[in-house]
């Protein structure tokens, strides 16, 4: 039992890990074909994983409805929303446009899915403003540095900010876009690079741990 429950899964990680790793160094046709096949496989497995999620979602909301739990009425809208996309997609055979004509699916995308996701994304603008007011506190020299860099970028990106800069700091002889350019290309790059290098090493070491089966917490016990 241990063999099929633990050893084989670990062997799968090892074999696929090493083979995929090698494709980077082996340019041969076989290696390219192998990687292509693996990409396809990954696509297929992820697609099934999606249905795992879909089933969980449906299960959770249908139990809510059947038990008449708190706010079960809202759960009905989960199914309404799902059908509002799936039925048009079925009718239009997955096509958004039929020539220049919007299909039913195109319609569902443009008037249901898109406003929802775009609005949620746009809510961020409000939260940026409230963070600016509520959380952006200069409590230390470090926070002050963050504040100064943010100020330059915020003002430097819009014409009104440039006008304000010219009025107040024009005497320095520097244009704000020069300052912004310098921040973006020198110190900010250094900060970002440091983070990126650290992350890449961490990622490599973690990947090694997984391939060699040292990190196996994701398998669970027994």
């Amino acid at each position, binding site marked *: 039992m241990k063999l099929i429950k633990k050893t084989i899964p670990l062997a799968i990680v090892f074999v696929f890990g090493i083979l995929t790793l090698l494709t980077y160094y082996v340019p041969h046709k076989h290696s390219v074909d192998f990687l292509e096949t693996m990409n396809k496989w990954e696509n297929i497995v992820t697609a099934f994983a999606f249905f795992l999620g879909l089933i969980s979602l449906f299960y959770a909301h249908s139990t809510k409805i059947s038990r008449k739990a708190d706010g079960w009425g809202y759960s009905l809208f989960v199914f309404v929303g799902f059908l509002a996309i799936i039925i048009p997609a079925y009718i239009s055979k997955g096509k958004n446009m039929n020539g220049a004509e919007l299909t039913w699916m195109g319609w569902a995308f443009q008037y249901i899915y898109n406003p929802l996701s775009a609005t949620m994304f746009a809510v961020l603008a409000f939260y*940026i403003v409230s963070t600016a007011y509520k959380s952006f506190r200069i409590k230390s020299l470090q926070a002050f540095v963050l504040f100064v860099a943010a100020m330059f970028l915020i003002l430097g990106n819009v014409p009104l900010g440039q006008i304000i800069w010219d009025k107040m700091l024009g005497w320095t002889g520097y244009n704000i876009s020069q300052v912004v350019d310098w921040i973006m290309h020198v110190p900010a790059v250094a900060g970002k690079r440091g983070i990126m290098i650290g992350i890449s090493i961490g990622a490599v070491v973690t990947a090694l741990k997984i391939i060699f089966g040292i990190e196996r917490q994701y398998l669970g016990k027994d």
Partner: protein
Amino acid sequence: MIKHKVFLTLFLSLSAVCGLFAAKPAPAAKKAASLPPAAVLGGVTAADMPYDVGGAVLLRWAVNPSDTPATTYTVYASSLQAGGWVEAESFASTAKTGKDIDLPFWAWDGSASEHAVKIELTNFFGEIKDGDVFHFKVAALENGKLVAESLPLDASTTSNWFRLDRLNNVVMLLLVTIVFFWAVSHAKRKGLFIRRIAGLDAIDEAIGRATEMGKPIYYVPGIGDMTMVSTIASTFILGEVAKKVAQYDTTIKVPHYNPVVMTVSKEVVKQAFLEAGRPDSFREDINQFISSDQFSYAASVDGMISREKPAACFFMGYFMAESLLLAEVGATTGAIQIAGTDSESQLPFFFTACDYTLIGEELYAAGAYLSKDPMLQSALKAQDFGKLVVMISVALGVILTAVGALMKWGAFTQTIADLFKAY
């Protein structure tokens, strides 16, 4: 005979140069036009392009010092025994020298004194098998008029077995692997020193507060999939948090974006409750699947947070634009917020909106810090070693390159540049 013609070409090119300098190019051009065409362009070789999947051929021939700016070369290719020529490449005489082939010094001996042209045959002939023979010829043109042409050459392509140009990557990988195994096999029982990580000390405080207030804890593992390091680190921290939650007997909720991560998290939380001696408190609905759509996930989690007003929110893992959507709503409810992510574009938002933030690699180190597992801690050693390599490389590289540039050792600085370039 051939020599004679080459001489003639040389002479012609020279006269063209003179014409240019004299700012009266017209007569020279006329002369060229009136002369017999096609001298033979000698010394052209054609061979398989190394280190690739196949389907490309490399042509090389010496740069003709007497070429003028008006000289261009055209390379023809054909799959037929006779005729069937296709124009594969056309370029100025100053372009496409050995230096322009983008390969490092250990894999390619490029010099500016020869032309080197890579021809992607698949662009012209579609699918190509190893060993298919193709024919090539190179023509030199002066103001669009043919002045010399090579004899047809044969070459076939092969699929190669090693990217020699990626040798630096291999060496780096071996180095990291060796250090990694050394560190792991020398893992000390008593554990190693790990520096303080500010956000992690606050975890106890946050859980304690939740217990006092009798409110739940939200643990958001982000929108990464299970192969992402940040997600793996996040499930580790989740395990430690869940253990403490079980000990204090408070409630925790983990909303999920990725079904696979949810599966793993279930195991992790169950295990944590078991280890804390409270398997009876474990409930299946601690881990909930929400949505695999980024913003509907964010909208839903926002809704949940604002309704349940948790005492503490953890945002650990991979996040995109939804970072601030979550953190700001959490802040509105007055929860203690601890975040950690390796997506550098979102760090600024967590940093401003949360009480504590684990920056990039700190998130990876958190698992080792919390669990005090000797294996994990020694893996951190390997990471530190990697950073040491970078620091030394940068410092030495900067100094050596600067010295090389000052002394005008072109080849030397090129060598260093090649070492630190990914091909």
